[in-house]
């Protein structure tokens, strides 16, 4: 009986090519002086590790083998193959690689003035502006994140989000799935639509335009002689499945009222949708439950005075310190409980970094979310199986199973509850990156950087003096630099005498402040993106405290 022909039976390459393949391989490999380097690290076995497979019981001590970018085998009684590089997993925990379900990782957008008008760039991929070599990505990996749904948040119909692995040489080979979902945000575009209200009007009109474009294209394809040829418009065309409700749109929302704006729009135009960002989900759990759509929750914790309703119990009240503290604590707790509240609604959800000023606090915020009520097991799912399922890549990612992409997050302990635990390794497409245990925290005295500093910045012979105020909690630092009429907010870390801060200037982009601190002096540089970098030196102000007593107003 003849076997049915499947795609597997079809030769991958035509016969001629097949004959030439060995020769081609030689030609390709020839330029590599050390052929073994190509394969070095491509077969790994992590031995004696705790394997959290995501499919069944945890394997308390087992081995997982990675080959050719895929998981080859795992289990308690697996012997590492002879050709594998052995990684001692004693004391380590192996998780399926964490997925950053809503992210701006690696995005390298041109400055606002140079950028395209992002009112409707529905046909573009987020990775059109992606820097695979970005140092940025290392920071994500150091948080255990191996894959990210990269989405532009600067547009209205801001293009297609792409699921991409966070290590590799180029976008095509790093891409896991593209496109995944059309993004829709609420950012003004400088000219029209500039304000939020115009953005909403723009969303409506653009959906109408897409539907109308669909009408014209459909009609023209059936009855070309009945009408003038519709103009080619790839962006409107890309939006048609969204306008028809056949493909979801990923609404990026932050505030309570953003959810309501999104809900009105999707109801009016019968859209299918997912939600991303969702920092104030805790204020609208009923709405989220009723919507019942996937929600990609950012672990960006807004400061409480940015949260809707901050003033309801504070405006014009004569609150004493204890009352203020109680209110602040109530609101902090609410912000931290966001993911737990979303979990409680029962909708499919995943966790991400989108909108975080510094991804360095991702694991910390994850632990805070768990402390605030998100079960650790659910947090793990929200970083693995949930996003894999939402993005339709359950066959490729999300669990430790043979044949799946070799993305592993290997930790020194339970990163969901133990603040001492760190990311020991990540494997991405079977490539390994190893991180050192964090250095002991700087403590007090000469190790503290918090407080007020006078800094001077010089670049190309020009110098300016400014004030830098730093707040330090453990090794986390936030700061504010006031210089040349600008106030730049920073966030980052201080450890081992090294200050590493990131911030941004509107319309100019990312700014970094790195400095070595010795006692009351610092020296380093201020990185101004493509503009270059400036030399920075600082002196601690004589009477300034350590920053602990600084009042945030």
């Amino acid at each position, binding site marked *: 009986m003849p076997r049915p022909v499947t795609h597997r039976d079809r030769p991958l390459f035509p016969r001629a090519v097949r004959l030439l393949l060995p020769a081609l391989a030689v030609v390709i490999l020839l330029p590599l002086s050390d052929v073994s380097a190509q394969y070095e690290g491509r077969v790994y076995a992590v031995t004696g590790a705790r394997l959290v497979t995501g499919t069944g019981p945890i394997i308390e001590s087992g081995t997982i083998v990675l080959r050719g970018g895929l998981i080859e085998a795992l289990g308690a009684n697996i012997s590492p193959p002879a050709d594998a590089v052995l990684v001692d997993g004693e004391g380590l925990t192996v998780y399926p690689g964490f997925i950053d379900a809503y992210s701006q990782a690696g995005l390298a957008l041109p400055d606002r003035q140079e950028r395209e008008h992002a009112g409707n760039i529905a046909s573009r991929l987020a990775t059109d502006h992606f820097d695979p070599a970005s140092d940025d990505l290392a920071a994500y990996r150091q948080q255990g994140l191996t894959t990210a749904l990269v989405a532009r948040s600067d547009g209205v119909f801001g293009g297609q989000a792409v699921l991409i692995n966070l290590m590799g040489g180029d976008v095509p080979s790093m891409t896991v799935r593209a496109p995944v979902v059309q993004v829709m945000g609420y950012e003004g575009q400088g000219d029209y639509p500039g304000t939020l209200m115009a953005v909403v009007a723009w969303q409506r009109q653009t959906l109408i335009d897409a539907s109308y474009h669909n009408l014209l294209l459909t009609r023209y394809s059936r009855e070309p002689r009945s009408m003038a040829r519709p103009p080619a418009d790839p962006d409107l065309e890309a939006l048609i499945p969204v306008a028809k409700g056949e493909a979801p749109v990923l609404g990026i929302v932050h505030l*309570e009222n953003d959810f309501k704006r999104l809900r009105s729009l999707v109801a009016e135009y019968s859209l299918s949708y997912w939600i991303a960002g969702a920092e104030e989900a805790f204020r609208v759990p009923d709405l989220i439950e009723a919507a019942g759509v996937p929600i990609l929750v950012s672990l960006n914790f807004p400061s409480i005075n940015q949260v809707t309703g901050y003033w309801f119990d504070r405006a014009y*009240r004569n609150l004493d310190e204890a009352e203020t503290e109680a209110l602040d604590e109530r609101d902090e707790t609410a912000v931290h409980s966001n993911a737990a509240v979303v979990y409680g609604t029962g909708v499919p959800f995943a966790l991400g970094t989108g909108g975080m000023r510094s991804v360095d606090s991702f694991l910390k915020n994850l632990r805070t979310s768990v402390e605030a009520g998100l079960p650790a097991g659910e947090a793990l799912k929200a970083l693995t199986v949930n996003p894999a399922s939402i993005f339709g890549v359950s066959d490729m990612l999300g669990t430790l199973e043979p044949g799946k992409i070799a993305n592993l997050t290997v930790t020194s302990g339970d990163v969901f509850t133990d603040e001492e635990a760190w990311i020991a390794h990540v494997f991405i497409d079977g490539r390994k990156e190893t991180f050192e245990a964090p250095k002991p925290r700087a403590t007090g005295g000469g190790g503290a950087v918090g407080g007020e500093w006078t800094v001077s910045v010089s670049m190309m012979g020009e110098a300016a003096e400014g004030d830098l105020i730093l707040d330090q909690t453990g090794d986390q630092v936030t700061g504010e630099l006031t210089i040349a009429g600008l106030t730049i907010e920073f966030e980052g870390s201080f450890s081992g005498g090294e200050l590493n801060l990131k911030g941004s200037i509107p319309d100019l982009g990312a700014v970094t402040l790195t400095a070595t601190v010795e006692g009351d002096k610092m020296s380093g540089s201020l990185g101004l993106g493509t503009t270059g970098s400036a030399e920075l030196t600082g002196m601690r102000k004589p009477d300034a405290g350590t920053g602990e007593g600084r009042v945030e107003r």
Partner: protein
Amino acid sequence: MTVTRLKVRPFSALLVTILCLIVVWPQTIMAQDLFIRGGTVLTITEGNLTDTDVYIKDGRIAGIGQNLEAPEGVRVIDARGLFVMPGILDDHSHMGVDRGINEGSRSVVPEVSIADVIKHDDPAFFTALAGGITTIHTMHGSANSIGGQNETIKLKWGRPWEELVIKNAPGTLKFALGENVRRSSSDDPTRYPRSRSGVAEVMRESFQLAQNYIDDWDDYQAEKAAWDRANRRNRGFAPLPPKRDLQLEVMAKALRGELIIRCHAYRADEMAMMMEVCNEFGVPAGVFEHALDGYKIAPELARNGWATSVFADSWGYKIEAYEAIPYKMQIHYEHGVRTSINSDSAERVRRLFQEAARGVKYGGVPENECLKMITINAALNLGIDSWVGSIELGKDGDIAIFSHYPLHTAARCEMTIIEGEIYFDRSATDVAADWVIDPDGGDRNRP
């Protein structure tokens, strides 16, 4: 004096309530019962009533009279010695708008709507409540010849966005004339129009485009109907519909008189132009905002049926404001031009009752007429006078209670009530020290 006895007929009362909730009063979700005892009630439309009780049931005024019996369990406010007036309306405000009030990128943007961007936790709302304000008309700015749609909301501080919106209030659309529209003070030299005559041209063109849009759709409907009727075999291709255009849809509504035009205007000649353009297109008269030179053309305003919403006494702050006078309330009143007094400000809003008192000072407008300018006239300007703006049976239980007659220099708002719910209570508000009258610095920080 009207004395209403409260009769309880459970079944019909329930039925009426349900019907009202469903049909007419979808906004009274948080409706409350409240009994305000023994105040001097300034009804605005039916005189001042001494020692009078006001009973609010399910958020609406259900009883006005002397010696009414407070139903058991209803919260009673002792207003003896106090003045009970309808909640004050500020019909020109920009408070509580999220991320921009001017879509200044283009000169004609009626498709944008404040309704989409209410910021219900603006602390200025609380400031306004402390001045007896219960309803504001929060508007698109005046940077555009034709700006966006405005929104009328109640200051239900602490309640979610959707509960603030007066859902059955008529739509209003912002227009503007003069310096702001021409962008004379802006650094954008490119946007048309740059002259006052250009503004007139933009108005005409916009109405004409709206008319064309209406015509296009009418033509299409007719062609489509004919096509539907025609023999299937030889009727040819179906007509293509025009594309929906949200901007033109709003302009078409304005053209058909389905939106109230609220037109920022300073100079008399521009107001005359606007009235002429509206007359040409058969657009109903609206409201001129500020109308600084309105006093010069009061008879023309009255004849054309335009109302105004003014500052009590601001002038001279820019060229086109040089000829404004504080006697405009009196002149408008005498010519029968309906006038409200607005704040246009998150600061002035808390003392709109003092602004109203200026009508008495400048030209001797009757006291109750001055109070109308911050209550029923504003409600009429917004088309919501069936629900708010006076203390009448069946209207919303929106009340401001004052320590003195509201136009008295010592008057201050003690309590502000919306639909029977107390949103500001001075005695229960532990006002922060910097917000209390400062003997040296005046009262500028007073809420």
